[in-house]
Each structure stands twice: as structure tokens, then as C-alpha cells.
């Protein structure tokens, strides 16, 4: 009886496996015949690598929306219709975690139709993922990585449309010392590549300006309990607290600090430039907090109104998060490159190794007017648009600081 049953299961398993192999094969043959036709419609994929369920989710979802907007506009354009080309967006949830990010990268590169990756949000994630993309000749354009060393790793496939911590940190420190008038600061980071780098650059400049760094501390990037740290900061009696981290931790530190009666504002980087920060901290607690963010305020850019209108139409009721406009530009750089290569080599060559290498070269040569300003890259892959703005929470919203 048991023996028969076992045999039956074995048979079922073999049949199931065979059927998988057969269907797998047939799917492949279909794909190749589709390519040979040349004029036949071709679908390619742009991957979005971002934290979607864990980590800075509000920012990650915004990145995905920015990309989808750029892609849906491209798909409606006559240029793509003439080429018979359709672009799809595939999301990969990196959870803000380097290990998960590595898995996402492997998944992305194993997808033959995937020609470029818009992402990742966290510098630490990119540090792992970029090597995997490099091996697969997949271009990566990040809207948000600010760690300085990422473009010094010799990865020819890596570009970013945002400026780096060695510009962002010092600009914010100068503001804190010279404009806000802080003399003593407490510096905290969240132990991630992003937070550590940013906090270190800030502290260096603050000290160079003549300020005193009263103490430094580390937290985890998913911590919620800062009570012990708050008591420590309170005892240090400082004018400002700098926290290199994302909104989900920085907002809670701000809340817990203010509730303990600390008056010093919290200052942070671009990872906090999001309405979610104020919601989490509570408007009264967040009032007066600073953050720096890359580029000019969206309102001051010529193409921004156009972007805002299109965004509101595509995603009614969604607020524009910190990196949505950057993601739109990053995706645009990839789309432009795909179109350029498709015209030069034909749509059927896009997914080949030569095609992917040509796309990398085309992104490197980008030069167009994006929502966030001019998009072009230097020989390392850094943006040539090195602008940082300071924002302050006023009446429950981030506004550009004086």
C-alpha cells in the first residue's frame, strides 16, 4: 500500500518536472522567434530596486512611482510606437537591506529582457548590487545613493543623478554653524553606509568651521527605542543634533528628544526630506528640524510644474516623495539610452551583450534637461549637477530654509 503510494507520488513528481521543462523550452523558442522578426513588437524591462516593505518604504514607493510615470509617458510616445518597443517596469523589493538587495540584483540580471535598473535607494544596498549588475552588463542609475565611494569602485555600469555626501554633509554643516548659529552638536548615525558617511562628512566640516562636536553615537537603522540616547544627548547640552539616517529612525529620535524637553533641532540628510518624517515625529516635535536634500527645490525648476501635473494625473492623491523626481530623471536616462541603441542596432539586438554594453555607453553620454536640472554624468558616473538645498519644518511641512 505505502509502496504503491510512494510510486504514485514519484510518478506525479516526474510528470510535473517534465511538464515544467517542456513549457520552459517552449517559452524560450517563442522568445527567439519573436526577436528574429525585427519589426515584431518587442517588450523590454526596466527594474526598480527599492525598499517596498521594509526600511524607508515611503521613499521606495515614491521611486517606483517616479519610474512608472517616466515609462508610461515613454510608452505613449510616437517614438517607441514606431520602433514597436514596449517598456515594462518590474519592481524588486530590497527592504533597504544589502543581502536582500543582492538577491534582487541576481533576479534582475537573470531576466534577459531587463536592460537597466533604476535604483537602489540605500548606498549600502548598491555597494552589493552594483557588482552583480556589472557582471550582467546591466546599467544602474540611482536617484538617491550619496555615499562618496560608490563611483570609485571602477564600475562602468553605475551612474547617479544625485550629488554626494562630500557635498551634502559640509553644506548642511556650514548652514548649521553659520546661519543657524549652532556651536555645540551631537552627531549620531544609523550604522549604514549612507548614515555613517554623511554624519562623518558633516562632523568634519562642523569642526572645521569652529563648532564643537560634543559626542558621537551609533544606532541601528530600524531602531525605535532612543530613550537612553536621548538622556545622553540631553546631558551633553547641545544646540543641534545631527543624525545621519533615514526618516523612519530620525523622526522617532526627534519625537523622543522633544518629548524629553530637549529644544535643540534635529538636522539630517536627504533621507528625511519626506512628509512621512513630520507625520512620524508629530508636527509640533518636528517643527524647526532641518534636512538637506540634493538639487533645487522642485518648485524652482522650470520643468517641475509639468512633472507635478503629470504626477497628480497618474497617481491621484499621492504626495511627491523625496526621490520621485530624481527617479523620473534616472528612468528617463535609461529610456533615452534604450531608444538610442534600439535605433542604432535594431530592437532585436537590445537584449544581447553588445546591446547592453551600448546602453551603458549611451547612459554615460546622457545630456538632457530633466525635472531636477541638467542630467549628465562625469567620467566616474557622478552627476555634474552638484546642488544641495536646506529645508526646515515650518507649520508641519518641509519648506526651503532661508
Amino acid at each position, binding site marked *: 500500500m505505502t509502496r504503491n503510494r510512494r510510486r504514485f507520488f514519484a510518478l506525479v513528481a516526474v510528470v510535473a518536472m517534465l511538464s515544467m521543462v517542456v513549457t520552459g523550452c517552449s517559452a524560450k523558442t517563442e522568445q527567439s522567434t519573436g526577436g528574429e522578426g525585427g519589426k515584431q513588437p518587442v517588450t523590454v524591462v526596466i527594474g526598480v530596486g527599492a525598499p517596498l516593505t521594509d526600511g524607508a*518604504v515611503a521613499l521606495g514607493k515614491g521611486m517606483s512611482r517616479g519610474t512608472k510615470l517616466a515609462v508610461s509617458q515613454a510608452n505613449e510616445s510616437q517614438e517607441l510606437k514606431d520602433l514597436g518597443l514596449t517598456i515594462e517596469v518590474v519592481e524588486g523589493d530590497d527592504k533597504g537591506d544589502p543581502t536582500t538587495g543582492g538577491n534582487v540584483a541576481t533576479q534582475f540580471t537573470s531576466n534577459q529582457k531587463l536592460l537597466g535598473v533604476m535604483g537602489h535607494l540605500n548606498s549600502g544596498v548598491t555597494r552589493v548590487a552594483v557588482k552583480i549588475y556589472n557582471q550582467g552588463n546591466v546599467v544602474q542609475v540611482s536617484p538617491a545613493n550619496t555615499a562618496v565611494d560608490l563611483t570609485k569602485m571602477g564600475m562602468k555600469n553605475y551612474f547617479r543623478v544625485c550629488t554626494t555626501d562630500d557635498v551634502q554633509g559640509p553644506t548642511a554643516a556650514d548652514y548649521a554653524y553659520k546661519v543657524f548659529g549652532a556651536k555645540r552638536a551631537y552627531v549620531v548615525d544609523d550604522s549604514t553606509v549612507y548614515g555613517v558617511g554623511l554624519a562623518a562628512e558633516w562632523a568634519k566640516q562642523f569642526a572645521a568651521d569652529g563648532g564643537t562636536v560634543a559626542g558621537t553615537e551609533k544606532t541601528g537603522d530600524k531602531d*525605535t527605542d532612543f530613550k537612553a540616547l536621548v538622556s545622553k544627548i540631553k546631558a551633553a547640552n547641545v544646540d543641534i543634533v545631527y543624525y545621519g539616517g533615514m526618516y523612519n529612525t530620525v523622526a522617532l529620535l526627534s519625537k523622543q528628544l522633544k518629548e524629553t524637553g530637549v529644544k535643540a533641532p534635529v538636522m539630517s540628510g536627504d533621507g528625511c526630506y519626506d512628509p512621512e518624517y513630520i507625520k*512620524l515625529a508629530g508636527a509640533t516635535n518636528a517643527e524647526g528640524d532641518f534636512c538637506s536634500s540634493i538639487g533645487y527645490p522642485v518648485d524652482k525648476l522650470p520643468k517641475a510644474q509639468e512633472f507635478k501635473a503629470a504626477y497628480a494625473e497618474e497617481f491621484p492623491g499621492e504626495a511627491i516623495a523625496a526621490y520621485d523626481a530624481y527617479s523620473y530623471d534616472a528612468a528617463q536616462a535609461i529610456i533615452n539610452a534604450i531608444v538610442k541603441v534600439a535605433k542604432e542596432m535594431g530592437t532585436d539586438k537590445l537584449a544581447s551583450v553588445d546591446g547592453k554594453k551600448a546602453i551603458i555607453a549611451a547612459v554615460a553620454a546622457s545630456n538632457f534637461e530633466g525635472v531636477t536640472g541638467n542630467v549628465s554624468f562625469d567620467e566616474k558616473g557622478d552627476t555634474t549637477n552638484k546642488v544641495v538645498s536646506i529645508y526646515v519644518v515650518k507649520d*508641519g511641512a518641509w519648506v526651503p530654509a532661508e
Partner: protein
Amino acid sequence: MTFSYVVEQTINGVTLGGLYALVALGYTLVYGILLMINFAHSELFMMGGYVGLGVLKVLADPAVADKAGMGFLKPIQAFFMSGGVGFVALMVATFLVSAVVVGFLGVIIERFAYRPLRHAPRLAPLISAIGVSIFLQNAVLLWISSKQLPYSRADGVQFVTATTAFSVAGVDVSTMQVFIIVTSLVLLALLDTFVSKTRTGRAMRATSQDAEAAGLMGVDINRVIALAFFIGPALGAVAGVFNGMYYGSVKFNMGFIPGIKSFTAAVIGGIGNLRGAMLGGFMLGIIESLAAGFISNAYRDVIAFIVLILVLVFRPGGLLGEAVAEKV
């Protein structure tokens, strides 16, 4: 370092310890009776936070009453938001509803995920517990939100405005801290009395010593186990609501770290021993706070776990594990 700073950090630690102790009791109660580690307990702590937030929103968030068809809530909210008696009623309702809902969730989980496996090898219910844990996390992730939700009204106003500090002899304490410490001590004392003094408590102790013999003596084993699975999660839920109010947010995976820490607290105290779990909880909380305050925030977990290892090296059964013969 002034004396008031030491006291302040200790108070931070006792507050954190109170939360750990409440959660640790859930682990230790179940272990004492079933010799099983309920890995889903940290998720019940998380569910407590969410249920509490839901109750607070329904009873005291004008944004909810403004939604279409919810207008009937307005007079109810007016009472709960009136302060004084209304505020006390709001707190009682929040903690009670959260504890009862999550308590019953615990009983349901026991009925469907653990009871069928009671006579299976010990690994089976453990895996089942991990499954329940993943299920609960993903249920919240999919049905509620993947975002970290602020523990406040939609317009950003805090439900409990009493979180701000007051000063006693140069030491800053917040009302919330007092609230947490007092509530957790009262609950712990109540549970201790319940288990050691009442008839049902005796049934629980008997079941933990020898379930089969207790059954022969007329103890309804299933009822006792269900009760343990009600009390543990209910206490965990109270801790979950406190956690939300005190630190200011809830997230679907927020239970993981406190869960591990509370489990550690239960092991330090001697798992299976109720007073041990309380002792372990407070000890761990205070050690963590002092480590963060005097050494470095980055080393707080390292130091906490060094203590765990030291305890296990010198007293493998935990601090109170051997001293007391009974397991509950």
C-alpha cells in the same frame, strides 16, 4: 556624569524592562506548560500595538468620524476626547480591547496551530509557531500597511499628551514612564497572585508539573492551556500598546527585536519560571539602558547578550531556574 543622569538612565531601563517582562511572561507561561517556544508571541505583541492604535483611532481621532457613514462616532468621540474621566475611559478601553482581542487570537492560534500537534515531535509545533509568525506579519503587511505608522491621530496630534517630562529633584521622568512602570508591576503582581493563590492557578501549576497526572486528577488540561494562551498574549498586547505610545510608531515587523530580547529575558530568569521572567525582563532593560548611557548605544545589545551568556555559563537553568522546583 551626575547622579541624576544615572537615575534617569535607570528609569529608562526600568521602563524598558517592564515592557520586556510583560512580553517575557508570555514565553515563559507557554514554555512552563507545554515545553514549547511560542515564536508567534512577538507577533501577538505587534498585533496588540495595531489593535490599540485602531481602538484609539475609532474612539478619539476626528478624521475617522469625518469619513462617510461614520458620523455616529462623533458623540462617542466627544466623550472620550473630553479629558479627565473621558481620558481614563479611553485608556481603559484601549488596553482592555487590545488585551482581549489579542488574547482570543492567542487562544485561536493555540486551537488551530498547536493543539493538533500536541503529541507530535517537539520540533513540529515550533515550526508551526514560525509559520504563524510569518502569517501574522504578512497579514498586517498586506491588509494594513507596509509603512511605519505613527501612533497618533491623522492630523499628527498625540493621543496621550502625557508623554512629556516632569522633573523630580533634578531627575526628568515622563508620565508615560510612570504609567508603564506602575501598570507592568501591578499586572505582574496580579498574575503572580493568580497563579500561586487561586484554584485555577493551582491547576496551571499542576499541569506544568505533569500534565497527564493533572488530567487524571480532574484538571481540564485543554482549558488550562487555552488560559495560558490567553493570558500571555493579553499581557503581550498591553506591552504592544505601551510600546506604540512610548516610542511613537508601529510596524508589521516591530515584534521581532523586542520578541528576541524578551525571550532572552525569560531565559536569563529561567524559562518556565514566572518570577524569573519578571526579574530577567527588568535586569535586561536596566543593563541595556546603562550600557547605552555609559558605554555606547552601539554596544547595548552586545552587552545584553554577554550577560545572557554569563548567566547561562554559571547558571544554565537561568537565575531562578533551579531554585524553584515548579515550572510555572
